[in-house]
């Protein structure tokens, strides 16, 4: 049996983590592939965390934050947007397909968006060849 792809989710405390909670309290269901790491703001997500995740074996990474204009810290999500746009271009050059990194705006009320995003990403990742990152040493 092929190993299930693991997806690391960096979720901001105020919107997306709350949306993940809402998906739970609403008893929505989605595949078990995600592992959530809570940060206060999507702006906290250092691109190096994402590279690290891929290096460690993540098939995909989702950075989830508040919608533009809704950031609890005014503009952290814009910072995340810039960093991830830049990082995605870099990852493609390294042979990491763009489908493997998603930036999603999920507000606290969008519990229903969680299953949609997870389902979609799991399906997409299963279509990709396995990610083999060369680790030096």
């Amino acid at each position, binding site marked *: 049996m092929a190993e299930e792809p693991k997806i690391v989710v960096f979720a901001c405390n105020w919107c997306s983590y709350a949306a993940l909670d809402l998906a739970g*309290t609403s008893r929505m269901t989605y595949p078990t592939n995600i592992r959530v790491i809570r940060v*206060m*703001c999507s702006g906290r997500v250092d691109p190096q*965390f994402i590279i690290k995740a891929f290096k460690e*074996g993540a098939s995909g990474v989702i950075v989830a934050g508040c919608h533009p204009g809704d950031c609890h810290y005014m503009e952290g999500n814009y910072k995340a947007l810039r960093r991830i746009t830049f990082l995605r271009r870099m990852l493609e050059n390294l042979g990491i397909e763009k489908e493997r990194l998603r930036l999603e705006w999920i507000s606290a009320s969008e519990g229903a968006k969680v299953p949609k995003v997870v389902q979609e990403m799991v399906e997409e990742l299963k279509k990709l060849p396995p990610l083999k990152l060369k680790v030096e040493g």
Partner: protein
Amino acid sequence: MSEEPRVGVYVCHCGLNIAGVVDVKQVVEYAKTLPNVVVAKDYTFMCSAPGQQMIKDDVKAQKLNRVVVAACSPSLHEPTFRRATKEAGLNPYLMEMVNIREHCSWVHPQEKDAATEKAKDLVRMAVAKARLLEPLDTIVSKVEPCALVLGGGVAGLEAALDLAKRGAEVYLVEKAPTLGGNAARLGKLAFSNMRGVELVKTLVDAVKSNPKIRIFTNAELVGLDGSVGNFKAKIKINPRFVNEKCNLCGKCVEVCPVEVPNEYEFNLSKRKAIYLPYAEAYPPIYVIDTEKCTKCRKCIEVCKPGAINLEDKGSEIEARVGCVILAIGYTPYEPYKGEYGYGTSPNVITLFQLERLLDPTGPTKGQLLIDGKAPNAMAFIMCVGSLTTSPTANVYCSRMCCTTSLKDILEIKEQYPDTALFVLYKHMRTYGRLEERLYEKASEKGVVFVRFEEPPKVKVKRDGIELKVYDLLTQENLEIPVDMVVLAVGMNPSKELEKVRSITKVGCTPDGFVREAHLKLRPVETPSDGIFLAGTVSGPRNITESVISGSAAAAKAAVLISKEQVEVEPIIARVIEDVCSGCGTCVAQCPFGAISIKEVEGKRQASVDAMLCKGCGTCAAACPSGAMQQANFKDHQIVAQVEACFR
């Protein structure tokens, strides 16, 4: 050198909420194999007193210096377990929570094995982070003993009044030119001999005579900085163009050539560009509608006291407050053109318009006449805009429309005994202690109740209105000719809410109302500390319920602002001074201006103002040398979580 971590892992069953899906015993056995884990246990309800006691006892007996609790969302019980950790004699920030309920058992009910594996992964990640946790001291900040109440409807008035009575200074800010909100436009209220405006006046009189309350009408919140205990609110006072010298002589209105629909009468009548919203409006000063005024200056010529100044630019003030109460109310649902014939006949009106028509001071002086005659037959269509009765309708029940309609129906029956009355409803919800009596009385008086599943069809004809409806109870198709149709519309979130949300950064529910910190336990608080909710800003409420929530919000706010200082979460950014090169990358990243570059002994380095830092961590993500670190979310702590996700 810090001591070796000794981690205790506590896995909660949450009854069967977790244990019904995740094999809790297996997770506990697995946790015992993780590095530095000294003890791992499970319990039915970890948040219960015995559950917490178990943790406390272990901390002491096993000399634990880290605690991991695998249970529900930290948004629910992080404070609980932090407190327990503290009571056990540990620093509360040496506790890490794992969410295996909302993020695991509840969303994977059919995949027990995979959910158990996921729970193990999550516990491993938390242990990895917990090993690296550091004790943090809470940051203490001074509290401003003032409150900002946004919205001058019943909820806001009640909240302002309660706070002022407790001795707090209150800034009461209302967007409209008058206090009173929606309630002031209602006619005679249910279970009361008061009209809406009279009820509001009772509150307004108390508010205006309280020296602790500063009232700003025609004003809005345009900026909010700071945090719990110390907000800086920017309030823009829009130009009114008429000052206190106004003696309400009304000459200006006579000469004003601009006529526009009167929103205070739900467009049933006209008003001028210079106007007083209604006779009892407060403050009793005319106001000029900037958008509609043509600047013809005729009003200035007739104003004897010289109260009008068309050059009025308004002003802006900054208020330092310890808390904010959002009480901006609701906007009545507006049916779309053609929804049950709305907008195609003057005799298809909304419940709010009916309130105005039945009000003795309304546009018809309380008369309900069509071509000078009382209507022969009238129908009320209930749940308009609620209970998904149309594509634009809300899912929720608006709580007040059934009772208000029945109250109006009894009033109409009294005034016009010969008028036949029909009520077409999806669900009749006269909940509460007194409300059902209204339904019984209406039935006794011969009002015909027709229950529908498919919304009725309304056909506006030249000589009246025809309703077609399938009666669910008698299983018959009915055709009902009437002269007038009242659409019992419900409540939408306030149309001002989006703007207020973008300034205050509070979240909303899928229905568009502001989300409470906890639906049952913290209904008047928001997840943002220091921001409270009163009235219909968080969902439909009747007047009684709005007043209650106004008082509740005031009580919660008073708990905060009556303290001299407040503890702020210490998860702020700090600089490792030896590493910092003083490049200033972080300075540009900080949205709060909390970071500055200082010169210390000839070396440039970043410095964080702990009071201004809100703990987002965006500076830490940008720092090229890793000198900027966010407490509790340090690079190596997050990286440890990432690594532990896979091994």
